[in-house]
Structures are given as structure tokens and as C-alpha cells.
């Protein structure tokens, strides 16, 4: 039993935290959110130089071959900084999925570019019902003259407007088992027939509805085996959910620290409000929520890392950590009062992001329902 980061991971966290304090302050988060394009290119390039973009990828693609715990340690710091970069959708979600599922030529084409900071990719999975279930993937892929023709729509696609490639989950065959007949295809968002409609999230991520009107895709853009993509996609969704929990924990810890700091200096009735028992108990409850979120998150990530069955642990982690992050933010607002409610104050950056993250990669209820099946 060893419930701490190793020296290398601690060192990565420390240097990441210092770097992000300087290079990813709340002002940057605001600027990225306000900007229509919303891509912090300078920061992304520096992250490439730090080799963060290649952290979990195999060395043959220019990566560092780091394990999932190390990746989570970095993502925890990114979450703490309310990171507005495409790290999670590009590196964690799509990048690792491609590394698992794509052919060697495709991997050689795409992964080194991601690692160098020269390419962005994003996953397009969700459709109208907003669920990460195989039966929810209905976007049609018909085979015509040796090519795929895509028709339908994807929702909540992060950064569709700036990526070089969408990794789209399509239904290439319909049978009695919905998890059969799903294919992943790489699609250039600038292809003919694609329309991007910006969605406006409460969080800072740029999300899009992507409609496909008879979009043709050549067969060499298929990722892995036709019709057989679901197991890889399922694994990627769960892995991303688990890693995102680290971001949630990082963000929640930052919010707790902000709140404790505020409670120590805000004086009412001639005393710092942090000396009032009700305020102390709120903080204690937040601390308990966040500490147990960390533990559940890293137990899940260790299971994944050791390639042991992890569905149960991931479900516990995502269900708990997502809600813990939101709840921590809401309680933080309770303690901050009016000042925390202003846009001018930074707390709302985390709160809005927390709520958006709650439903990303599966809602808490979704994961609780999965858990019921294993009880």
C-alpha cells in the first residue's frame, strides 16, 4: 500500500504547478473564454516544449511513455489551474484512443504531430440523447463506392472549430446488439457537408454541434477495424472519465484553499468568519469530500494502470468526484457570499467549469446505474 506519488511524479507536479501559476493564471482562462477561437497557442506550444503533450504516448511517437498515474498527476495540476487548453480532449481522450485502436500508419501520421503541438484532435461521440451508450450512436455511415457517407449530427464536440481531425463514432451496421456495428472514422471538420454550430456552455470549453450532410470519408480514415470500435471507445470514455476526475480533484482543492484563505481574512462581527463554527464545518465537509474524491480517483487510475478490471472503481470515482467538485464550489460560494458571486472574482471560473465537467464522459447518475449492476 503506497498512497503517495513517487519522486518523479511529485517533481512533475511541483514544476507543473509553478509553471501554471505563471503561465495559466485566471486572467488567461478569462481571455480564452472571451475569445471566439479560444485556443491559447502560446501556452500549448510551451506545454509541447515541456513534453507534456507527449507524456502518455509511446516513445516511438515522440512521447515519454509515462504511466496513467503520472498523467493523472499532471492533469490534477491542470484542473487546479482551471486549464483552458485542449489537453483532455486531444491528448487524453482522442490521443490515447488512437494509440489503442488505430493502424500504425495512422498513428505515425497523427500522434507525433499532437506531441509536437502541431495537431489537434477531438472525439465526437455524443448525439441527441446525450448518453455515452452504444445504442445512442446512430449517426449513419453508409458504404457507397468504397467510401463512407456520413449523415447525422454529433453534439457537445469540444474544439471542433480548431482541430485538424474529428474522431467520429458512427453506426456502420445495425444489428440486434448495438455495441456491434460502431466504427471510428477520422474526419476533417472542414470537409464538404460539415456544419459547425457553436454551443454555449456554462463552462469555458468551446462545444459544438457538428452536422454531417452526406460527408464522404475514404476507407483509409477508419480507425481500427470496421464495426468493431465499441470496446476501444468504451475503454477510452472510461479512461478519460477517470483522468478527468483528477482534474476535478485538483480544481476542488484549489477552490477549498481559496475559501479557507478568504475565511481567514474576511472579518464580520469583529472576527474572521473562519472562526465561526458553521463556516469551519462547511470547510471540514469540503475537505472530507475532496480527500475521499482523491482516494477514489487514484484507486481507479491505479487499477487502470495495472490493467486490472476498473469499471467499478471508475464508476465510484466519477460519481463521487464530479459531485464533490460541484458541491465544493457551491459551498465555497456560501462562504464567500456576495463577493464570490461577481464575475470579477475568480471563484466562478471553477464553479462553472465544475458543472460542465460533471456531465462530461458520463454523468454521476450514469455511473451509479452502472454500479447497481455490479452490487
Amino acid at each position, binding site marked *: 500500500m503506497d498512497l503517495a506519488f513517487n519522486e518523479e511524479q511529485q517533481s512533475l507536479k511541483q514544476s507543473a504547478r509553478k509553471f501554471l501559476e505563471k503561465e495559466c493564471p485566471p486572467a488567461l482562462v478569462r481571455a480564452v473564454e472571451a475569445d471566439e477561437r479560444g485556443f491559447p497557442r502560446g501556452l500549448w506550444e510551451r506545454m509541447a516544449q515541456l513534453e507534456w503533450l507527449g507524456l502518455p504516448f509511446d516513445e516511438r511517437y515522440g512521447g515519454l511513455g509515462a504511466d496513467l498515474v503520472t498523467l493523472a498527476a499532471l492533469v490534477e495540476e491542470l484542473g487546479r489551474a482551471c486549464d483552458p487548453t485542449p489537453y483532455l480532449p486531444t491528448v487524453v481522450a482522442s490521443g490515447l484512443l488512437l494509440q489503442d485502436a488505430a493502424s500504425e500508419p495512422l498513428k505515425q501520421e497523427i500522434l507525433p504531430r499532437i506531441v509536437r503541438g502541431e495537431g489537434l484532435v477531438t472525439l465526437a461521440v455524443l448525439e441527441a440523447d446525450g448518453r455515452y451508450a452504444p445504442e445512442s450512436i446512430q449517426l449513419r455511415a453508409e458504404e457507397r463506392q468504397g467510401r463512407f457517407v456520413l449523415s447525422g449530427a454529433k453534439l457537445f464536440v469540444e474544439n471542433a472549430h480548431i482541430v485538424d481531425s474529428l474522431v467520429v463514432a458512427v453506426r456502420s451496421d445495425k444489428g440486434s446488439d448495438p455495441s456491434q456495428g460502431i466504427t471510428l472514422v477520422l474526419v476533417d471538420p472542414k470537409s464538404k457537408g460539415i456544419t459547425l454550430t457553436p454551443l454555449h456552455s456554462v463552462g469555458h470549453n468551446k462545444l459544438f454541434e457538428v452536422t454531417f450532410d452526406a460527408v464522404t470519408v475514404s476507407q483509409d480514415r477508419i480507425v481500427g477495424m470496421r464495426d468493431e470500435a465499441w470496446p476501444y471507445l468504451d475503454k477510452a470514455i472510461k479512461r478519460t472519465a477517470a483522468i478527468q476526475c483528477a482534474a476535478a480533484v485538483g480544481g476542488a482543492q484549489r477552490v477549498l484553499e481559496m475559501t479557507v484563505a478568504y475565511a481567514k481574512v474576511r472579518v464580520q462581527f469583529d472576527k474572521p468568519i473562519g472562526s465561526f463554527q458553521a463556516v*469551519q464545518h462547511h470547510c471540514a465537509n469540503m475537505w472530507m469530500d475532496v480527500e*475521499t474524491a482523491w482516494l477514489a480517483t487514484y484507486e481507479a487510475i491505479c487499477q487502470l494502470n495495472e490493467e486490472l478490471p476498473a469499471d467499478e472503481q471508475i464508476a*465510484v470515482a466519477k460519481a463521487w468526484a464530479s459531485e464533490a467538485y460541484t458541491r465544493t464550489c457551491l459551498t465555497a460560494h456560501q462562504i464567500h457570499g456576495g463577493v464570490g458571486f461577481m464575475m470579477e472574482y475568480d471563484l466562478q471560473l471553477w464553479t462553472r467549469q465544475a458543472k460542465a465537467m460533471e456531465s462530461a464522459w458520463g454523468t454521476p447518475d450514469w455511473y451509479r446505474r452502472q454500479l*447497481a449492476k455490479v452490487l
Partner: protein
Amino acid sequence: MDFHFTPEQEALRRQIRGFLDQHVTPAHRREYDADHTPGPLSKALLRKLGETGWLGIGWPTEYGGQGRSMMDQVVFYEELEKDHVYYGDLTITSLAMALIRIGSEDQKKEFLPKILHGELSICLGYTEPGAGSDLASLKTRAVRDGDDYVLNGQKVFTTGAHYSSHIWLLARTDPRAPKHKGVSLFLFPLDTPGVTIRPIYTMEGIRTNEVFLEDVRVPASCMVGKENTGFYSAAVALDYERVFMGQPSGARRALDQLIEYCKTFQIDGRRLFDDPVVQDRLVRFHIDVERLRLLNYRVAWMIERGLVPNAEASAQKILASELSQQITDQALQFIGPYGQLRRSSPHAPAQGLMLQAWLLSVMQRFGGGTNEIQRDIIAQRGLGLPRG
């Protein structure tokens, strides 16, 4: 980073499980569940446990212990708690270790072998009618007289006084010192003249006690640690209690029983478990039980690393007690009108144990340090917020 026990620890777990499966019978559980008082079966089981050496699992080997790590102890208590039998509680979990840390060599020689063999039970004499959370305001007085101390006063909620042989008691030796600095710790037999024990029956139906001390004369050698260091000694004992207060296996056991019940109880061929509302509640409890298990590991791991888990241990106690109440409360609801039936009643489900656990949970939220103060500890010692 690693969330697993070692192969050696899993082997230890199998050994302990084997012993318990062999020696613990439903009769043991019934006897202990009835009133949480160790009867003849429980006492015999404790002596049998004593033969294994496991009662000294964490003690240094020079005192007859096994010198095992905190994580090994977690394994031991995880298995013990699954069976919910009497295993000496505080005596073996913390008082023995506190004696090893601060007791005199004579005290160690007198008490440790008997504790190790499961032949001794010590009850805790801290709380008084006027001193609960504010323990420092205790009034029981100990006055030096020659080679003895003479004790006068009263303790309340002295659980176990009616079956223990000795009491571990805090008394004021210097009324002029600041409250928490004028207190000393004594360890002496309950059959000392002047000691009167009276029962208090609680809402749970279990007996605790009042202990009256009237001119109780004990040799000065009964003092544990130096004079006026009693609070420090109590803190040392508490340090060793941290891993065990709010041990998670009880919550896991309660939840597993509830899940089993929901899977068996049927109305019109439909199990309670098939109701999505029921499933959601059970899943949420499962998440909480898992959080508690992980928190317990963190407390133990920190102690192994030489860190003091003030906030973590408080969190463990809070979580365990509140979860226990929530699970039992919900369980009684699921069981419907049968839930209200006591063990003596016809049709009482599972000997009315869930009801009893619910009643006990009332005490667990304030006993062993109220949850409000535990939250204060997290806020003040953990987060550095200022005292009120």
C-alpha cells in the same frame, strides 16, 4: 502508487480469516449482539485469540508483540470487524500501546502479558457529568497521601466497567494548574474499596455505567506517566485509537446485509432490489463505504510514514458514524413495519439487529468525540482556521 495489500498481508488475512471461520460461531455473535457484554463464550474466544499472539499484533516484540506494521493491523481489524465479535476493543487497540509508550516497567510487566493473552479488560474513565466534550473541566480529585493517592469523584458513561477488571482514569492532581495541565492518569482495579459501579441503561438497551469513587486509596505506582501529564497520556492513547475508531468493516457488513435483504425480499415476484430508487440508495451507500475504506487506509498509511493523521482520523470517525446511521435508518425503512420490531418480538427480522444498530448509531455520532468537534479539528488542525 499502489492501493493493494502485499501478498504477505493477504496471506495474513487468510490466516486470520481461517481462525475466525473456525472459532466464531453464531452463538458467539448472538451472545455479544445481545447486549455488547462479553459473556463466557466471548471471553473464551478472546483467550483463544490471545493464544495466536495477534492481540499484540502491533506491539514491539520485546513486549511479546508481533511488531507488525499499521497496514498489517488494518488487515487484522478488517477481518475481526467482519465478524462483529468481542476482541477486547480499546484495551488491545490503544491502551496497551499507550502503556508501552508511557507506562513504568512494573506496569508493563503486570499488565501486558495478561492483555496479550486476552485475560484482561480495561475500561475508560474519562467522562464525568460535567465534563464531556470539555474533558479538561473534569473534577474527580486525586490527593497524594504518603505512598498512595486518594481518589474522590464520579465518572459517567464508563462503558465496560461491569465486566472489566481495571479502569484507566483521569483525575485532577493539581487544582491550581491550568485545567488540562493539572490532570493525571491512573490505572487500578475496579474492586478497590470505595469504588461503586451503578448501571445506566441506554436507548440502545445496552448497559453502561456510573462509577463513584469515595476515598479510593490506590498506590502511587498506579499512576501512568508523570504527575500532571494525564492529558498528554490520553492523547497518546488516542493516537493509537485513530485507525480503529470508525473501522469500516461494520459499515460494509451492514450494507451487504441490506443488499442481501433487498435481493431476497419480494413483493409480487419483484425484488426490492429491482426498484431503481432502491438501487440508487444502495449504490450511494456503496460509494460512501468505499470512501471510508480508502480513508482508513490513508490513516494507517500516514501513521506508518510517521505522519499524524489528525484531520484524516477525525474524518474517518465522522464518516463511519454518519454512514452507519444513514444505512441503518434507510434499512429500517426498506424493511417496512418489521423494522421497528425488537429482538424479543415475534417476526423480528434478523433478531432486530438492524434496529439495534440504528439505536447505537445515535451514540456513535457524539461518542468518541462528537462529530461537531471532529469537524472543528479538521478545520483548525487540518486547514488552519482560527479558534472561535
